C-alpha cells in the first residue's frame, strides 16, 4: 500500500499473500494491521470506520484499539468488554512512502530504494513470476525489478495474491517531473495490458 493512499481516519483491506487484512490509520496518523474479521459476527473490519485512535466494525460498532483489544460494545454502553475479545494484530511500518506489513516477527527493517519514490499500486492478473521474467524487466543485483517506462527508470515490487495474481508497486525516480509521472502511469497500464494479453494467449495455446 502507498502511504499517500491511506489518509488518517481511513481503513482499507490490505491485500497480503495470505488474504485481506484490515489496514487503518488513526486520527493521529498511527498505522495498524489487523485480522479482517470482527470476532462478534464475522463481519469484515475493513468495511468499518476509524474514529480517533480506534477502529469500529460497521455491523454493530464494536470498537477496537491499536493493540487489538475491544474497547466498546455499543449495545451495552456501560459494559467493560472482557479482555479476551480482541482481533489479531500484526507488525506494520512505513518506509520510503510505502506501508509494509508482516504477519510474523519481522526479521529486519523493510528494504530501501534510495532515490526512488512510489508512484502507483495496481492489480495485475498474472503471476509475479511472469512479471519478473518479462523481456521488459531486468532483475537488479539487490533483487529489485527494474524497468524503463516512458523513458523513465522505474522499479517494480511484485507481491503474490491468494488467487495467483499480483499486487504490483511501481516506483519512479524521486526527481521525476509531474508530466513524466503521468506518462509512466499510462505506460504502466499498457504494460499491464500486454502482460495480461500474453497470459490469455498462453492459456489459449
Amino acid at each position, binding site marked *: 500500500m502507498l502511504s499517500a493512499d491511506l489518509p488518517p481516519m481511513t481503513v482499507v483491506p490490505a491485500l497480503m499473500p495470505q488474504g485481506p487484512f484490515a489496514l487503518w490509520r488513526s486520527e493521529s496518523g498511527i498505522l495498524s494491521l489487523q485480522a*479482517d*474479521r470482527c*470476532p*462478534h*459476527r*464475522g*463481519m*469484515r473490519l475493513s*468495511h468499518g470506520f476509524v474514529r480517533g485512535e480506534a477502529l*469500529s*466494525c*460497521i*455491523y*454493530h*460498532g464494536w470498537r477496537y484499539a491499536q493493540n487489538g483489544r475491544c474497547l466498546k*460494545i*455499543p*449495545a*451495552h*454502553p456501560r*459494559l467493560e468488554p472482557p479482555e479476551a*475479545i480482541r482481533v489479531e494484530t500484526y507488525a506494520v511500518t512505513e518506509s520510503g512512502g510505502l506501508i509494509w506489513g508482516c504477519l510474523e516477527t519481522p526479521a529486519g527493517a523493510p528494504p530501501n530504494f534510495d532515490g526512488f519514490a512510489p508512484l502507483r499500486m495496481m492489480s495485475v492478473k498474472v503471476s509475479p513470476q511472469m512479471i519478473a521474467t518479462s523481456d521488459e524487466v531486468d532483475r537488479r543485483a539487490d533483487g529489485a525489478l527494474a524497468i524503463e517506462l516512458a523513458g523513465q527508470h522505474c522499479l517494480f515490487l511484485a507481491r503474490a495474491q491468494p488467487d495467483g495474481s499480483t499486487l504490483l508497486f511501481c516506483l519512479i525516480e524521486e526527481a521525476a517531473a509531474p508530466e513524466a509521472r503521468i506518462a509512466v502511469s499510462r505506460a504502466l497500464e499498457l504494460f499491464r495490458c500486454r502482460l495480461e494479453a500474453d497470459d490469455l494467449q498462453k492459456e489459449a495455446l
Partner: protein
Amino acid sequence: MIGPMMDAWYPVALESRLGTNGRSTRLMDTPLHVARLNGGAIEIRTEDGRALPVRLRYGHVWTSLGAPTTDLFDIPEADQPGRRLVEVGVVRVRCSPLRAVENFLDIAHFPFVHTDILGAEPHTEVEKYEVEIREKEDEVWATQVKFYQPQAAKSASTGITTDYMYRVPAPTCSVLYKTCPARPGEWDVITLFVQPLAEDLCDVWPWMALFDDESPMTDLIHFQQMIFLQDRSILENQIPRLLPLDPGMEIPTRADLTSVAYRRWLKRHNYTYGAQLVAQ
C-alpha cells in the same frame, strides 16, 4: 446434506408475478420449475418430473422438497381487514440463508447499518428483552424488544421508541411485529421469507402487512428494499459465509439472545443446511 430442512416450506415465487412462462429456480441445490398452467393453476416440478406440493399464501408460492409434517405456518394478521399487503420482490444474496434470517432478528446493528432510519448514535443500547423457544408451536420468540428509531417506518416522521416482537416459525422464515405509528395498539407485520438456493446463496423475499393508508405502494416497497440492500452489504461480507453453530467461532452478548436461541433451535432440529458445524 439437506437433512430435516428437506421437509420445511420455502417461498419460490411471487404469485402475482408468475406469468405463463413460469419461473425456473432452485431450492437447496435442486433445480425446479414453477409453472402457471392454462386456467391459472400453479404446478411445481423438479427437473426429473417429480411434482412438489404447492401452497399459495402471503403473496408467495410455497413448496417443499420433502414431506412436510405440518402445514405452512400461520400469520393470522395477514387476513386482518385494513392492512396493506406489500410484495417487496426478491433480492439475491451471496450468504447462507440462515445468516439472512439471523441478521433479520438483530436490532443492535440498526444505528450502524440503517443509520438515521432504524437507529442512530448515541442511542445504541439494547435493553433486556425476553427470548423463548415455544415448545407447543415449536417456534423461536423474542418479546419486549425496544429500540429508539429516528424513522421507524415510512409513515413515521419523528424519532420514537419502537416495540418489537420476533418470531421464527420455519428455519428460513421470520416474522417481525413492530409498533404501528398509524394505529397505536396494533402491530405492523414485516416478514423475511428466504429461499435457500445453495448453502451459501439465497433469494430473499420480504413481505409486509401494514396499517398505512397514506404512503404510495411504490414508497413502501422502496423503503423496505433500501433497508434490505443495506443489510445485504453486511451479509455478503461476513466470514465464514455459512452460519457457525458451534460456540467459539463467534462471540455473542446479551443483545444477541434471539440469535443464540435461533442457533440453538436450528441445532436441536438438525436444521444445518447453510450452517458450519465445526470451527475451521
